């Protein structure tokens, strides 16, 4: 049989529990806009009842736990998509920088080819005109310059990507050591089934940032949570972090080494790092080599056409373009050797007024090169590739963006704070608190009635 004191005890417990609930609610409201915050819900339970002569007596309420509401699977998906999007965005930024050089601006290779071809056709109608000949020299120089500029643009974008690799690796190392520190704070709780609360929120937020930098895989081991790169090189194992390193490799780029010194450059995928490596080691070198081949084969074809004819003084034609031996660096090193307009091999019979070799010179522009297509077709195919790479990266980024938005919506639907809900809870717990306070005041009143009854 419970006395008034038991009721007083129950009232006190109710006051404590609702206070806890009120503080959880106000914490939720305060953190409604904190990135990565996971709302907390209070878990009440009944206090053990007591058996007495008159039957079972309730023991009031207990506040058991504050539980953060999270969905680990959803978090994992968001991390993966974030890696994918950030990789696409990194590539897109690089490609947008590159495609400026392939856009028709009047300074691009297509415009320069046009002007060069025009100047050759002009000299066809006026083979002995010094100004028409000068036109061929100047437009040839412009064409070489356009090749140089485009090659520089590609090389610049590649070295930017290389810088991004080293910077991103440094950021990854900072993040992994922070994550390891938070893991150390969490480890007493791991395995107890208890929630990590704010520390876990912070850790999850850092892991999300990490997934933006590179693709990661997360697994559980006896040491706690393990984060590795996509190919399995460890980044964080429990409370220990393993830093990546970069080293200047013989190919002039920075390679990424894992903590054991293994070169993992080619297996890194996703995130800024994966995007920058993809751009630096695959996409841009592909463009560079096609541009170099084009410059090298075109220069060779035009020089060969020069050799078929004679200049205005009747001498056999000499090289018009100078191009580095071997294909590599051809576009960057292309230049015009001739400076005297009279040395263009326009004539086919050695007389100054003949234009018989112009057809051969023009053929270097219109006939297929050893690569199988003409200068203009080869360049057009390069423009197509550059454009497609850019539009693919952009399409990928926006597709993943859509998916990511859905996932984020789902996540905030699970873990996010709804102000209306919290306001309602506030009213609910306020009322509960008032009611519990009324219990205490009622018992106090009854106690004084009892005391007065005796006196």
């Amino acid at each position, binding site marked *: 049989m419970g006395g008034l004191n038991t009721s007083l005890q129950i009232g006190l417990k109710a006051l404590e529990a609702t206070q806890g609930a009120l503080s959880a609610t106000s914490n939720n409201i305060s953190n409604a806009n904190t990135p990565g915050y996971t709302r907390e819900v209070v878990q009440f339970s009944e206090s053990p009842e007591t058996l007495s002569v008159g039957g079972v007596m309730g023991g009031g309420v207990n506040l058991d736990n504050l539980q953060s509401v999270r969905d680990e699977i959803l978090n994992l998906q968001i991390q993966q998509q974030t890696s994918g999007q950030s990789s696409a965005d990194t590539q897109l930024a690089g490609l947008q920088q590159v495609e400026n050089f392939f856009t028709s601006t009047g300074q691009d290779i297509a415009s320069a080819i046009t002007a060069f071809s025009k100047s050759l056709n002009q000299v066809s109608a006026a083979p002995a005109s010094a100004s028409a000949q000068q036109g061929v020299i100047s437009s040839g120089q412009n064409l070489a310059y356009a090749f140089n500029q485009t090659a520089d643009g590609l090389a610049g974008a590649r070295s930017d990507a290389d810088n991004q690799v080293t910077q991103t690796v440094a950021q990854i190392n900072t993040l992994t050591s922070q994550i390891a520190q938070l893991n150390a704070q969490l480890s007493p709780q791991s395995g107890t089934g208890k929630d990590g609360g704010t520390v876990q929120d912070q850790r999850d937020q850092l892991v999300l940032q990490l997934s933006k930098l590179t693709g990661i895989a997360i697994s559980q081991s006896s040491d706690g949570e393990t984060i590795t790169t996509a190919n399995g090189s460890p980044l964080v194992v429990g409370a220990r972090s393993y830093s990546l390193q970069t080293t200047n490799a013989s190919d002039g780029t920075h390679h990424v080494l894992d903590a054991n010194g293994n070169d993992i450059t080619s297996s890194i995928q996703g995130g800024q790092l994966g995007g920058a490596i993809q751009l630096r080691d695959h996409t841009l070198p592909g463009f560079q080599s096609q541009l170099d081949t084009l410059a090298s084969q075109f220069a060779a074809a035009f020089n060969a056409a020069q050799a078929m004819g004679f200049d205005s003084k009747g001498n056999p034609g000499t090289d018009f373009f100078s191009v580095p031996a071997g294909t590599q660096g051809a576009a960057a090193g292309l230049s015009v050797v001739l400076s005297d307009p009279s040395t263009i091999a326009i004539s086919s019979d050695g007389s100054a007024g003949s234009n018989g070799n112009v057809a051969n010179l023009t053929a270097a522009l219109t006939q297929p090169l050893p690569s199988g297509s003409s200068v203009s077709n080869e360049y057009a195919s390069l423009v197509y590739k*550059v454009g*497609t790479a850019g539009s693919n990266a952009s399409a990928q980024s926006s597709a993943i963006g859509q998916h990511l938005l859905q996932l984020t919506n789902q996540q905030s639907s699970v873990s996010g704070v709804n102000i209306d809900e919290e306001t309602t809870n506030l009213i609910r717990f306020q009322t509960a608190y008032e009611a519990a306070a009324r219990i205490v005041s009622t018992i106090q009143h009854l106690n004084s009635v009892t005391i007065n009854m005796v006196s």
Partner: protein
Amino acid sequence: MRISSNMVPNILASLQQSQLALNQALQEVSTGKRVSAPSDDPSASANMVQNTIDSGNLDQYTQNVSTVLSMVQTADSTLSSVVSSLTQAVSLATQGANGTASAANRQAIAQQVQGILQGVVSLANISYSGSYLFAGTASTVAPFSADPSSPSGYSYLGNSGVNSVSIGDSLSVKVNLPGNQIFSGSSVDVLGTLSSLVTALQTGTTSDIQAAGTQLSAAISYVGQQRVFYANAETQLNSQQTYLQKETVTLSSQATRLVGIDMAEAATDLAQAQTANSAALAAAAKVLPTTLLNYLSPPQ
């Protein structure tokens, strides 16, 4: 489904999207271009490379046609003057061959024919914007110069080369006849015939003069035949000019199709994008500040 009241990411995303569409529509209208970078439409950009080069060449072919046309017309009208000079020489030969003509008359006529010869030589040495039209491909030097050792009194310094000028991607037109073919060929030697007429008038018999006159008549029809070459070239150039004009229109409309915009469509797109953008902004302004708190009375 539980809804989080944090709608900021959603609203931001839709605002960004409508802003992006608005920017793009605005750019299309202001530049008149649908494609401003290769990634906007890779295949149109690639096709534009060929289009740019083709239009540049077309431009030059058109200029070549008009340059060559004036050159050919000059050559043709020069030959026409040669023919009338020769006709004049034939009638002088007839006068000289007349039995009534005295020796003094013949000397006077010989002088006139000598004048015609010099006139024809200067016509044969005609140049057009710095290049000699009847010198073969050695067009930087006057082709006919006085040479007493030569039977005609003139020697040919040019060659027998012929230039072809490009007037289309796979079309070129021959633009000259070598001067030795027209004026001092092995079958008909115009300058030699005139020169022998002079000699016949000065020292020859009546029949010598008549023979020279007959040869001269043959030379007239020969030069007339040579003119056919220039007439054909003119015809070809004129029809190519028409073709190039049509082709220029074709290429520029292809360029519009590839990277240009349909103004009406672009303007409609812009208006739509504007409406969508202001709708998104208005929605954001209405939705963002609303919570239950707006409707609860403040605590007493």
